[in-house]
Structure formats: structure tokens, C-alpha cells
């Protein structure tokens, strides 16, 4: 019973670590790292559910009956691309913010913004 979900719990722990980094940390780059960990963990979750005991990779071959579910794989391929796209954009923003504010720490930027107003 417990073992049946063990895998998912690990994934949840990973997700939450990523999520924690995103919301608790002030460094813009680190936030993005956290975001990508968060997303990657979700990918792991998807892939986990596609697994069948005794199944193989979903490439058709003679003599194999059990295949893992290909659909989550497809979804995650797409999601990975989305993830890298977000990361790239986020990093680009971080670089620009560094140029404009001279800092990539959330608090410092916030303080400078408040001065602007």
C-alpha cells in the first residue's frame, strides 16, 4: 500500500523544493533554477505514471507485449521545450534587470523601485 505511492511522494518532495526556492529566495537566477526544478519534477511525475511494470520503451518491436504509455512522454517532450523557453526568457530578463538596476536581488530592486515612485 505505502510502497505503491512511494515514487510519487519523492516527486512531491522534489516539486516542493523547487517551489520553495521560487517563492522564498530573493535571487532572480536562483528563482529561475527553482522554477526549472519545479517543472522538471512535474515532468518526472508525468513520466512516473506512464510506467508499467514489465513494460518497455514505446518503440514497437517484435515479441514485446507491454509498452509504457507513450502519451505522457509526448506531453512531457512538449513541456520540456516550454520549460527551456521560459528559462531562456527568464534569464534574459534577469540579465536586463541586472543592467538596469545593478542587482539581481529581489529586495534591492524593490527598494530602488520604491525610490522611483
Amino acid at each position, binding site marked *: 500500500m505505502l510502497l505503491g505511492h512511494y515514487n510519487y511522494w519523492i516527486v512531491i518532495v522534489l516539486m516542493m523544493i523547487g517551489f520553495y526556492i521560487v517563492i522564498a529566495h530573493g535571487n532572480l537566477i536562483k528563482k529561475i533554477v527553482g*522554477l526549472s526544478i519545479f517543472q522538471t519534477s*512535474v515532468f518526472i511525475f508525468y513520466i512516473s505514471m506512464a510506467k508499467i511494470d514489465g513494460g518497455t520503451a514505446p518503440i514497437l518491436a517484435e515479441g514485446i507485449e507491454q509498452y509504457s504509455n507513450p502519451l*505522457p512522454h509526448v506531453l512531457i517532450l*512538449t*513541456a520540456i521545450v516550454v520549460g527551456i523557453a521560459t528559462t531562456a526568457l527568464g534569464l534574459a*530578463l534577469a540579465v536586463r*534587470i541586472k543592467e538596469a538596476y545593478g542587482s539581481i536581488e529581489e529586495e534591492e530592486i524593490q527598494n530602488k523601485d520604491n525610490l522611483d515612485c
Partner: protein
Amino acid sequence: MLIHLPVLQVIIPLLAAPLCLFLTKPRLVWLFALIVSGLAFLISGLLLQQVMTSGTIIYDLGGWDAPWGIEYRIDRLNAFLLLIISSISTIVLIAADTSIRKEIPADHHVLFYILYLLSLAGMLGIVATGDAFNVFVFLEISSLSAYALIALGKDRRALWASYQYLIMGTIGATFILIGIGLMYQMTGTLNMEDLSKRLPEVSQTRTVFTAFAFLIVGICLKLAMFPLHLWLPNAYAYAPSIVTAFFAATATKVAIYLLIRFTITVFGLSFSFTHFPLQLLFVVLGLVGIFVASTVAIYQTNVKHLFAYSSIAQIGYMIVGFSMTTMAGMTATLLHLFNHALMKSALFLALGAVMYRIGTTKLTHFQGLGRQMPLTLAAIVIGGLSLIGVPLTVGFVSKWYLVMAAIENGWWPVAALILLGSLLAVVYVWRIVEMAYFKPALAGTETIKEAPLSFLIPIWTLILANIYFGIDTRLSVQVAQAASMSLFGVTP
């Protein structure tokens, strides 16, 4: 070709975006984008007409029938949304050429239009599709282009706003992804129609409960529903004016659409509102949102901020209408969706015109503008009156329906609070009116002229629409009613 309308609706702007790179002249690209958006508008009009007369259109992409392939499923609800998005996009684009010349460096103009078309296509894609995962993909197209568009703003704060939006938006999208994953795990399908058939069997499971919770939180993040609204004001305030006008009218509407789609079509009313304390939660958050955001709006010194907070308050009205779970409430929400799009796009475009002429939208710089830019300011006043909900404007019509729906539910206090909330709108709108009309112009601003025609035409088109749909409500009410009927499964 008519049967391909659903897919053409999305792929025309989608394919037009990369094509822009081949036309290197910004002017040309603008014209091209305008034509493309106009085409999308035309298609959405045709689609709506088709749907109203002959019911839901189903289009199987790749020729694979659902749930194996992805299908587009256009019913009255999303046809209505498609029309709102594409029409506003087209009208706003008219002013784009003039506006971005002042606000964006010249070598980024082509990129601007590409991103604009992409985000248009993304939103249309979210609305048109009948596949849950496809929603996620198109959500990302529209979001990524939105982040980039916002970051194009002149002020350095635009970068920071965009970054915050990116983080919040991505968290939201990932939550949605988790929700979709959990749903998929319990049902084995991604198609919405199929999901709605298979979910009831497993609706008692805790997994589905979790899936629902994640979807709702994710969507509410995108929706900027109070208290998840923190990203919105800065994003709207520092983005280029055109972008603000476009997004204020459409982006949150798409999120509302998703909310309606998932709670009512996919999960079904009985699940969403009986297994889940969604009704109480939404009524309270909606009302608190109205009051808090309107109050904050009153104290803003930048008019763009002011209207951004007002947008959050208006989202509150839609949430309240939605949470009534009656046909009348849904009609009111849909009506307000349309009406609010008209008001806010007009208002933000007018602010764009002010930005164009005086380079800022600080409230103190509005002094005496009523004389210098009479037509623009008149537009802001009419738009503001509409926001308040004065008769003969669209705002009144939606308020009427909303209060009516509340009374029908027997929610008297809610009805009174809705009306009370609109008084706060009077206060913030009047701050602008007094500043513009009863203060002498600032020294050294004698040379300020009325906004150019390329601004006035779209602004006044929208303002006249505000008045027209406030006087003749047959069209909008009929469509909104039909859409909410089809949502609740009543045949008209």
C-alpha cells in the same frame, strides 16, 4: 473553406507571426498584422454566426478523431470569446504604429508585431481548443509573448514587472499542468468532452479533488483574482500602452473563460460547487477584491495603475457573477466580460494617447488636459462613466444583470454590495475628471495638442461601441444568454 474556420481562426495569426520576419519594414509589418488581425475578426464573426444558428462545431485536427487526436470545439461560449479577443485586438492595432514609435526603439518594431500576433494566436488557441493539454501549450505561447511584450516597456520597472509576471505566470501554468496531469491519471484522457464524461465516475477520489484545486489556483493566478493579483498592476502600468490596452481587455478574460470551462464543462456544476466550497470562497474573494482593489485604485498617483487596480476590481464582479452558478449569473458575467473589454481597451488606449502626447500618465500631469486634448479626455470620461455603470453605457447593462442575478438568488446583501462597490469607481474616476477639467494647465504645456487621428479613431470606435451596446443590448445580451444556456445544457 468554411468548415476549416475553427482552425483558420488560430493558425492565421500563428503563421503570420513568423512571416513578419520576412517583411522587414515596420510599417509594412504593421499593415500586415492589422490585416491578419482583421481577418481573424472576420472569421470569429462568421464562426459566431454559424454557432448561433447551427450549434457546436467540432473540428478534428490531423483528421484524428478525439480523444486520440486534438479537437477544436467551438460552442457559443468560446465563439463569443473569440469575437471579443479578435475584435479588440484589431481595433487596438490601429493605433499601434503611432504609439510604438514613441515607446519602443525602432529596431524592435518588427519583433513587437510578431510577439503581438503570437500572443493573439495564443489566446485564440486557448479559447478554441477542446483539449486540456493543448490549453497548456497555447497558454504558454500567449504568456511567453506577453512577458516579452511587457518587458518592451520604456521604464526599467517594466523589466521587473515582467519578471514578476513570468514567475507568477509560470507557477500558475505549472499548477495547471499538475492539475491536468492528475486528471489524466484518473481518467486516461485529455479531451475536455471525454473528461467530462469520465470524471463523474471518479469524482469521489481525493486525486480528482486535488486536481481541481490545482487547476483553480493556477487559473486564478493567471486571472489575477484577489489575492493573487500582485503581478498585474505593475505589468499593466509599465508595459507599452498598446500592450496594456490589448491585455487589459483580453488576457484576464481568457483566464475567466478557462475557469468557466473547467468548472462547468469539464468538472460539472455539481462537482465544482457541491464537493468544493467554491461558491462561498468565490463570493467572498470576489467582493473583497472589489472593495480592496477599488479602494487602492483611489489612492494611485499614476492613472495606468489606477485603471489596473480597477481591472482587478472588475474581475471581482465577474467572479461574483460566476459564483452564483445560475444562468442569470453566468449571463451577467459573460456580458460583463464583453463590456469590460470594451471599456478597458478604450480607456487604456486613451491613456496611450496621453502617453504619446505628454510622455507620462501621472495623475498630476492631467491638469488642464481637458482643454488641450478634449476628445481624448472626453473618451476617458465616457469610459469612466461606463466603468461606474451609468445608464446608456455598457457598464450599466452589466451591472443591471449582475444585480438582477444576485436578487434572483436571494442574495440581497451581495446585490447591495455590488452597487456600493460601484460608488468607489465614482471616486477614482472623478479624481481624473477634476484634475483634467478643474485645474489650470501646467506651465509650459501650452503646446500639447489633441492626439493624432490614428489614436482617435480606435478610441472613439470603442467608446461608441460602449454607448451603442449600452443602448441597444439585443446583440450582446442575446449572445451572452445563449452562451450561458449552452453551458448549463439548456437548449434555447
